[in-house]
């Protein structure tokens, strides 16, 4: 079995299995935790208003803007570039479509009535390059800033690496730089699988928990009468 066959076969199956097990383990574990009984009287009626925090936390308050703007902007740049490359590049779409059809027996078009649109390869490459630049910028910032360096641990750096590697190997595979395409494609797939395996057990899990966490925090704040 060559490296690409391994990456497309056994490695992908194991990574998918570990990803699914890990994500559901974490999510169900959190959801079934006992909530602490709050015996105090709510300060403000209508706790659902607290969900506004999901949107409000999307940008720092002006008091903190000076210190947080760089990280925020770079975070948005990275995420937008990453999501564009992930969801609008045809090979990725074909993979997701195949998974979707395999799991639910219907196609994306069968449900939504329109095909999943693709973007030109050049645009995907540009989005990936922007994403990589943003990732490098935030890493340098983390290393240079004494406070951030102090509070950073293995999880931060390893999560950065497993995010960085698939984008870079994907760009190399697209442009055929450094090795035969099959090798680069295999490395790209293996790096994605490393991300999938690490995903549930590190900070990357925020992709599933971030909005729920903000919402529950907002509802708690609202109940206590805090200004959101």
């Amino acid at each position: 079995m060559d490296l690409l066959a391994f990456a497309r076969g056994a490695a992908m199956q194991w990574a998918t299995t570990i990803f699914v097990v890990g994500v559901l383990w974490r999510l169900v574990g959190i959801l079934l935790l006992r909530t602490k009984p709050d015996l105090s009287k709510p300060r403000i009626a209508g706790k659902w208003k607290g969900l506004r925090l999901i949107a409000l936390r999307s940008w720092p308050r002006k008091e903190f803007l000076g210190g947080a703007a760089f990280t925020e902007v770079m975070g948005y740049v990275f995420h937008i570039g990453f999501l564009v490359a992930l969801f609008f590049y045809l090979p990725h779409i074909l993979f997701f479509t195949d998974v979707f059809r395999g799991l639910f027996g219907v196609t994306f078009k069968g449900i939504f009535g329109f095909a999943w649109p693709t973007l030109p390869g050049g645009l995907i490459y540009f989005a990936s390059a922007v994403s990589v630049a943003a990732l490098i910028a935030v890493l340098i910032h983390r290393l240079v800033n004494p406070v951030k360096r102090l509070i950073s641990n293995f999880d931060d750096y390893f999560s950065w690496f497993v995010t960085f590697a698939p984008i870079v190997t994907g760009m190399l595979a697209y442009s055929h730089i450094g090795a035969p395409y099959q090798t680069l494609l295999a490395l790209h797939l293996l790096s994605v699988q490393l991300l999938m395996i690490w995903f549930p057990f590190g900070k990357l899990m925020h992709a599933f928990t971030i909005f729920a966490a903000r919402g529950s925090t907002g509802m708690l704040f609202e109940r206590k009468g805090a200004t959101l």
Partner: protein
Amino acid sequence: MSATRTIGQRLAEEGVSRRAFLKFCTTLASMMALPPSMGPVMAQAIAAKRRPSVIWLPFQECTGCTESITRSGTPTLETLIFDLVSLDYQETIMAAAGHQAEGVLAAAMKENFGKYLLIVDGSVPLIEDGAYSCIGGQSNVAMLKEAARGAAAIICVGTCSSYGGIPKADPNPTQAVPVSAIIKDKPIVNIPGCPPIPVVITGVLAHYLTFGNLPELDPLGRPKAFYGETIHDRCYRRPFYDQGRFAKTFDDEGARSGWCLYELGCKGPTTYNACATVKWNSGTSFPIQSGHGCLGCSEPNFWDKGSFYRPLATANWGNAQTVGAAAGVGVALGAAAAYAARKRQDRFVKEASAPPPATKQEH
């Protein structure tokens, strides 16, 4: 048998002009990615050489590779076997048969020992001492070992002799192996393809005649001049891939407009071959130009890499059952973790609310 006259002398006798021969050599040079100035050099070198003896052994194969070379346009099969090489043994196109043919083979090997080129098409079955494919009562594996002893080099024509090909496909009932799995002490060039491009075969022979050695090879033993780039890299539909324009079915508007066939399972991105540049039938067309995706036939184990019509991007991630089982395990683990956390909380609460242990009062 090998002629004693040089190739140049033979060509002159047969009325082949120097201009025509130069044109042929320049064409070969360009196909091998050599500079145009190498055309005359090749012509001079080839013309001065005697025709090398070539022995072609067919093993576990379908004769498609021979069919391919009979359609060689540059040079034609006739030019190849009469002017460039002395094809001393080739079962499909030779007139002799039976003991007469076997005698020709033995004589060719003896007369040109250490100098002849051995061309092999077809894989070599090993099970039952190679009994699944025999010629003249001799197994392919025995025949290969015997012929390889006196060969200057071995050229594996087709994916079967190069990597095992279709006979080696799962479950490989004959335990088929490529030539390189048996012969370890001779230079081997793989010219894979199912079938391979005829010009690639003649190009390798021309290189051998010109330089006296075999061309530079890639890690899979293929000549880099012809297998240095993927079909995808040189495909005329590549701009549509870059633009994100893909045919969704074989007869939709995209297919009729010549859009990329990636979504229809084309294996061009992972296949190294010269189909997109050299093409077939004297440069007429190649499979993608005819509207069908590349099958990846010049790659090892191409038959076992999933459906030809499944896009490359659709990796074998599993199925609904395995993912469902994984989800079940994940939910169970999560529930167990939450249960354990609750029990721990209860224990802490119980311990915290328990009266402190009585201490002895001192009087």
